[in-house]
C-alpha cells in the first residue's frame, strides 16, 4: 500500500514545471467554475453550455486575428463582450422560458445548446484545431535562476488571478454585487424593492459567459483553438464546482486553483493517476460533505 509514494524526489525543474502547469490549468478551472457558480446562484441553472462559451471565446479571438487582423490584446476585451452578448441572447431567448421549472430542465437545455454549438463548429472547422500564436510581447521566457518561466504562462497565471480577484471584489464589495447576492437569496423580495431582477438575471448570465470567453482567449495560445476544447475542460470544471460547492464564489476560485495544482503534482508523483485524481477527490468530498467544501447545505 502507498508504494507509489516511495518514488525518489523528482528533480526540482520537473516539479516546478508541473506546478506551473497546475497553476495555469487551475486558473482556467477557477475562472470557469466562478462563472458557473454565479450563474447557478442566481439562475439555479447548471450551465452545461459553459464549455461551449469558453470555446466560443477562443474562436472569437481566432476569427478576430485571422479575418480582421485584430490583436490578442483587443480580443481579450472584444471576445468577452461578444460572447457575453451571445450569453444574454441565450438567456432571453431560451433560459427565461424555463426559469420557473425544475433545475433539470435548465441542465438539459444548456446541454443541448452545448451540443448544437460544438456540433456546428466541428462541422465547420473539424476537430483537429487551429494554432493561435502567442502575442509578440509575451513570447520567450524569463530565466528565474532555477528554471525558465515562459512569459505567456506567467501572464496567464497573473491574468486569471486578477480576473478572479476583480470578480470577487465586484460581488462582495460593490452595490451591484450586493444586489446579486440578495437576489440569489430571495429574488421575489429584491424585485419588490424595485429592482428589475429579470434584467439582473440576463446581465449575470452574460457576465458568466464573458468570464468563460475570457478564459477561452487566455487558453487560445496554449491549447489549440478547437471545437473540442470546451468539452475537454468542462467535465473537470464540473468536478471542481462539485468539490468547491455549487454557488460559492470563493469556493470556486480556491478549489479551481487548488485542484489545478493537485492535478499538476499528481503528474509528478503518479502520472497515471493525474487524469482521475480530481474525480477521486470529488467522490470523496461527496461522501463526506455532499454540499461541497465551501457550500452551504440545503
Amino acid at each position, binding site marked *: 500500500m502507498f508504494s507509489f509514494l516511495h518514488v525518489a524526489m523528482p528533480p526540482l525543474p520537473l516539479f516546478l514545471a508541473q506546478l506551473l502547469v497546475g497553476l495555469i490549468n487551475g486558473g482556467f478551472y477557477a475562472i470557469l467554475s466562478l462563472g458557473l457558480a454565479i450563474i447557478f446562484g442566481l439562475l439555479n441553472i447548471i450551465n452545461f453550455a459553459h464549455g461551449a462559451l469558453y470555446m466560443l471565446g477562443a474562436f472569437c479571438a481566432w476569427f478576430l486575428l485571422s479575418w480582421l487582423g485584430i490583436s490578442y490584446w483587443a480580443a481579450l476585451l472584444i471576445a468577452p463582450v461578444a460572447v457575453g452578448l451571445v450569453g444574454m441572447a441565450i438567456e432571453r431567448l431560451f433560459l427565461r422560458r424555463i426559469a420557473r421549472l425544475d433545475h433539470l430542465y435548465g441542465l438539459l437545455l444548456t446541454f443541448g445548446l452545448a451540443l448544437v454549438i460544438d456540433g456546428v463548429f466541428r462541422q465547420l472547422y473539424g476537430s483537429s484545431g487551429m494554432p493561435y500564436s502567442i502575442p509578440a510581447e509575451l513570447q520567450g521566457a524569463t530565466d528565474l535562476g532555477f528554471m525558465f518561466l515562459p512569459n505567456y504562462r506567467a501572464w496567464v497565471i497573473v491574468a486569471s488571478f486578477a480576473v478572479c480577484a476583480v470578480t470577487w471584489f465586484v460581488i462582495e464589495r460593490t452595490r451591484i454585487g450586493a444586489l446579486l447576492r*440578495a437576489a440569489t437569496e430571495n429574488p421575489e423580495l429584491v*424585485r419588490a424593492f424595485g429592482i428589475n*431582477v429579470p434584467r439582473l438575471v440576463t446581465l449575470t448570465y452574460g457576465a458568466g459567459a464573458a468570464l468563460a470567453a475570457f478564459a477561452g482567449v487566455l487558453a487560445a495560445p496554449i491549447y489549440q483553438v478547437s471545437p473540442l476544447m470546451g468539452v475537454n475542460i468542462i467535465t473537470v470544471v464540473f468536478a471542481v464546482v462539485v468539490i468547491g460547492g455549487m454557488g460559492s464564489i470563493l469556493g470556486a476560485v480556491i478549489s479551481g486553483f487548488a485542484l489545478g495544482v493537485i492535478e499538476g503534482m499528481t503528474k509528478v508523483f503518479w502520472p497515471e493517476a493525474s487524469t482521475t485524481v480530481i474525480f477521486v477527490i470529488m467522490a470523496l468530498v461527496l461522501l463526506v460533505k455532499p454540499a461541497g467544501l465551501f457550500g452551504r447545505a440545503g
Partner: protein
Amino acid sequence: MSEALLEVADLNAWYGESHVLHGIDFTVDEGELVTLLGRNGAGKTTTLKAIMGMVGRRSGRIAFAGAELIALPSDRIARLGVGYCPEERGIFAALDVEENLMLPPAVRPGGMSVEEIYTIFPNLAERRRSPGTKLSGGEQQMLAIGRILRTGARLLLLDEPTEGLAPVIVRQIGAVLRTLKAKGFTILLVEQNFRFAATVADRHYVVQNGCVVDMIANSDLGIRSDRLHEYLGV
C-alpha cells in the same frame, strides 16, 4: 374626508389553483395608519403580497396615487412609492446590516437619510458591519422597517412587525410606527395582535376567508370589542 392614497376593490388572488382572496375591498387615506386584522390564514398576508404583485395571479383594482397596479410587476409597483416589509422580515444573510439597509433603491425624493434611520434605530448603527441575520429578532425587524424608509416610499406595507417579539420590543416598534405616522407616512399594517393595533391605528379592517367583513374605527374599538373578539376568536 381626505383623498384615498390606496384603493383596493374586488381584489382576488390565487396561488396556483387555490383561490385565496375573494374580492377584498378597502381604502387607505393619505397619512392614515390602517390595519388588516384577522385570524391565521384569513388572507391578510396574501392581500399585502397581492398589492405588491407577488402572488401567482390576481384580479380586481388596486389604485395607488392615481396609478393602477393590478397589471404591473412588483419592481414597477415599488418604484411608484410602495415599501414592503414581509412577515418573515426578509433580511439577507449574505449582506451586512448596512448593505441590507442600502439595498432598496431610492424610488422617489424625500426618503429619510441613513443618519435619520440610525437615529430611530440606534442598535442598527452599532452593528452596521454584522451579517444581517446575526441580529436579534427585534433588530432584524427594525432593519426590515428601516430599509424601506430610505427609498422615499409614501405607503408602507408592514406584515406583522410585532410577531414573536418581546413586549419591550413591541412597545419600541409601536413608538416607531407613531413616529413614522407623524412624519407623514401612510401605513397599511397586518396584525394578529389587536391590542397592539389599537395603540397605533386609525381604522381596522377585519379579514375573514379572503374577504373584508367589517371596518372598525379605532375610536369605536371599545364599544365593539365583543364583535372583534368574535371575529378574531380570542
